[in-house]
C-alpha cells in the first residue's frame, strides 16, 4: 500500500475560516477562527490516511470539508480529478453516494426513532433502490458488520456503544462508497470494543477496497490502522509520512512531543520525555509565524515571524518546520 497508486482525492490550498461576530450592540472587532488553514495533500486509492491532532487542530472540520458538509472558504478538493467544490447541489447529491462518513458518537449519530433496518436502508432509499434489493442489502450489511439479522427491527437504544458503531458503519457502507471519512470512530468506545471495531474496519477494507481518511486524537490507534499519517496542529498540517516512518523517524518537534506524550502500556519503558511547556493556544488569533513556536523546544527567531514552508524531507515524507529545513540544507 506504500507505493503511490492512483490518486483518489487531492486537496489544494484548503481553508476554512469561521467568523465570530462581535457580540450584540457593542461593535467588537470581528474575530476569525482559522480552523483549517491551507492544507495540501492527496489520498491514494485503497489506502488509509490517518489524521491525528489535539483538540482545536481542525481535523474534524477538515473531514467535513472533504465531503462538502461544510463549504470551504478557499481551496479545491479533487475527487477522481473533478473539483467537487464547483459542483452544483444536484451534482453533489449524485456524487455523495461515493463518499461517506462514519461519525464519532454512535449514540448521537443514529436517529433514536428509527429501527436498525430503516437506518441502514435510508441511503438506499435516497438513491431509489428497489424494496427487494434494499432488504437483501440490509441483510448483507448486517452480516458484514457482525450484527445478527434478527435484530434489524430494534431501535438504537437497545444496542451497546460498540454495536451502534457497527450499525453506523453498515449505513456508511450501504452505497458501496469509494471514500470513507471516519471521524474519531472509536473514541467513544471501550478498549476491547475499540479493537473489535478497528479490526472490522480493516477487514472491510481488505474485502471491498475502500479508501479511508481516519481522523483521531489517539496516535496509537491511528498508527495501527493507517498506511500514512498526517499530523495537524492549529489548522495546519505539520508533518505527513508513511506511518512507520512517522513513528520511527519523526522530524517535526510537535510530532516528536506528541509521540513521547502518549502513555505507553509498558511500565518497564521509562522513556525520555519531550515535555511540552505551556498550553494549547486558541485557534482564534493563533500565534504568528509557525503556530507551534510558543511551545516548541527548538523555536528560533525566524519561527515567530515566518510561516514555515511545506517541504519534502525525503521521499513521501513532508514537514513544515524551519529547523528541519535548515538541517537539510
Amino acid at each position: 500500500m506504500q507505493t503511490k497508486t492512483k490518486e483518489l482525492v487531492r486537496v489544494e490550498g484548503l481553508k476554512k475560516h469561521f467568523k465570530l461576530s462581535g457580540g450584540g450592540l457593542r461593535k467588537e472587532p470581528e474575530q476569525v477562527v482559522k480552523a483549517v488553514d491551507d492544507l495540501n495533500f492527496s489520498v491514494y486509492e485503497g489506502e488509509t490516511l490517518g489524521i491525528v491532532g489535539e483538540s482545536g487542530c481542525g481535523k474534524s472540520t477538515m473531514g467535513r470539508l472533504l465531503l462538502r458538509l461544510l463549504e470551504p472558504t478557499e481551496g479545491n478538493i479533487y475527487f477522481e480529478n473533478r473539483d467537487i467544490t464547483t459542483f452544483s447541489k444536484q451534482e453533489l447529491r449524485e456524487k455523495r453516494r461515493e463518499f461517506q462518513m462514519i461519525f464519532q458518537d454512535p449514540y448521537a449519530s443514529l436517529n433514536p426513532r428509527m429501527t436498525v433496518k430503516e437506518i441502514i436502508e435510508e441511503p438506499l432509499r435516497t438513491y431509489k433502490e428497489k424494496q427487494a434489493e434494499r432488504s437483501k442489502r440490509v441483510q448483507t450489511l448486517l452480516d458484514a458488520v457482525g450484527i445478527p439479522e434478527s435484530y434489524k427491527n430494534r431501535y438504537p437504544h437497545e444496542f451497546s456503544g460498540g454495536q451502534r458503531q457497527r450499525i453506523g458503519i453498515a449505513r456508511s457502507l450501504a452505497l458501496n462508497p469509494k471514500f470513507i471519512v471516519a471521524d474519531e470512530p472509536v473514541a467513544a468506545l471501550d478498549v476491547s470494543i475499540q479493537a473489535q471495531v478497528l479490526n472490522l474496519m480493516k477487514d472491510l477494507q481488505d474485502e471491498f477496497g475502500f479508501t479511508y481518511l481516519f481522523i483521531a486524537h489517539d496516535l496509537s490507534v491511528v498508527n495501527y490502522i493507517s498506511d500514512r499519517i498526517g499530523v495537524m496542529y492549529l489548522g495546519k498540517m505539520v508533518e505527513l509520512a508513511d506511518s512507520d516512518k512517522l513513528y520511527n523517524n519523526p522530524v517535526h518537534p510537535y510530532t516528536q512531543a506528541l509521540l513521547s506524550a502518549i502513555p505507553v502500556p509498558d511500565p518497564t519503558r521509562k522513556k525520555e520525555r519531550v515535555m511540552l511547556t505551556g498550553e494549547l493556544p486558541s485557534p482564534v488569533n493563533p500565534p504568528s509565524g509557525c503556530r507551534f513556536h510558543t511551545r516548541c523546544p527548538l523555536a528560533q527567531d525566524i519561527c515567530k515571524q515566518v510561516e514555515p514552508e511545506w517541504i519534502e524531507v525525503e521521499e513521501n515524507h513532508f514537514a513544515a518546520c524551519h529547523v528541519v529545513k535548515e538541517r537539510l540544507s
Partner: protein
Amino acid sequence: MEDVLLDVKELKTHFKTEKGVVKAVDGISFQVRRGEILGIVGESGCGKSITSQSILRLVGYKRNELVSGQVLFEGEDLLTKKEKNMLAIRGSKIGLIAQDPMTSLNPVYTVGNQIAEVPMIHEKASKKSAWQTAIAMLKKVGIPSAEDRADQYPHQFSGGMRQRGVIGMALAGNPSLLIADEPTTALDVTIQAQVLDLMLKLRDETNAGIIMITHDLGVVAEICDKVAVMYAGKIVEQAPVEELFANPKHPYTKGLLKSLPKLGDKERLQPVEGQPPNLNDLHEGCRFADRCPFVFDKCHTEHPPLFSTDSNHRTACYLYDEEAE
C-alpha cells in the same frame, strides 16, 4: 502494617431499580499505603467510579442505594461515620479530583476563592492566610503568575490549567489520600503528560496515597505502583504494575492488553469478543465466563475467589486454583 492508609474490605454497592438490583460494586477489597499510587482500571460500567463514590460516601443516602462492607481510612470505618464527620473528612483528609474540571469548579467564583474556601472551612483559617494557601497551591501545581491567576474565573483558564486548579483545590486541605477519577480523560495528550507528571511530583512531595481511576492502561503503566483490574463490579486481578503488564494472568486482563494498539506495532489486535454483562442480570458464576476463551463448567456456577499466584499477585480465575489440580 503501620503505613496502610486505606483498607477496603468486601465493599458492595448495590442499586435497587425497577429492573432489579444493579450490583455496581460487588465485594471488592484492596489497600492503599501512604505514598503509593493504586490504579483501578476497567471499562465503562465496571464500577470503578462507583467505588470512589462509595469510599467518599457520595452514594448510600437514598433508600435504593445499598452500601456494605468496610472502608477503613487511617483505621476508622468511613461507612459507619456520621455525615457531619464525613464532611470534615471530604476535601481535607481525602481529596477528590474529578474527570471534568469544568464542572468541578463553580463558574461564578474565582479559582483562588474556591481553593481558599477549603482551609477556611476545614481549618477555620483566616481569609488572608487562606488566600495565601490558595496562591501557594496554584504555585505548587505549576500555574504561572499564580497571584494574578488566583483572581481569575474558571472560564479564563484553559482545560489543562483548570485541571491543575482542581488538583490544587484537592491538595489545599493537605490530604493523606487523593482519589483521582479519570483526571486526564478530558485533556489532550500533551496536557495529560503534564498533569500525570505533576501528580507523580506531588506524590513524592506529600507522601499521600493516590487512587487513580482510569480506563487507560497506558496511564496506569506510567504512574501507578500497583493495579486492580475491575470487571462488572468485581476485582478480577490485582498485582504490582510491572508484574501485571509482564505477566497478566486473568483472561480479561490478557484480552485487554491484546486489544490495545501499540505504537510501532501493526500486529493484528485480538479483542475480547462480545459485550460486558448487564449488571442487573448476572448469573452466579464468573462474570467474564460468557466472553472467556478458557471457560469451563465451574465458571458458570460459582464466582471464583482471588487466588494468589505470587506473593502479591492475585487473580479471580479458576485457572489458577491450585487445589483443584
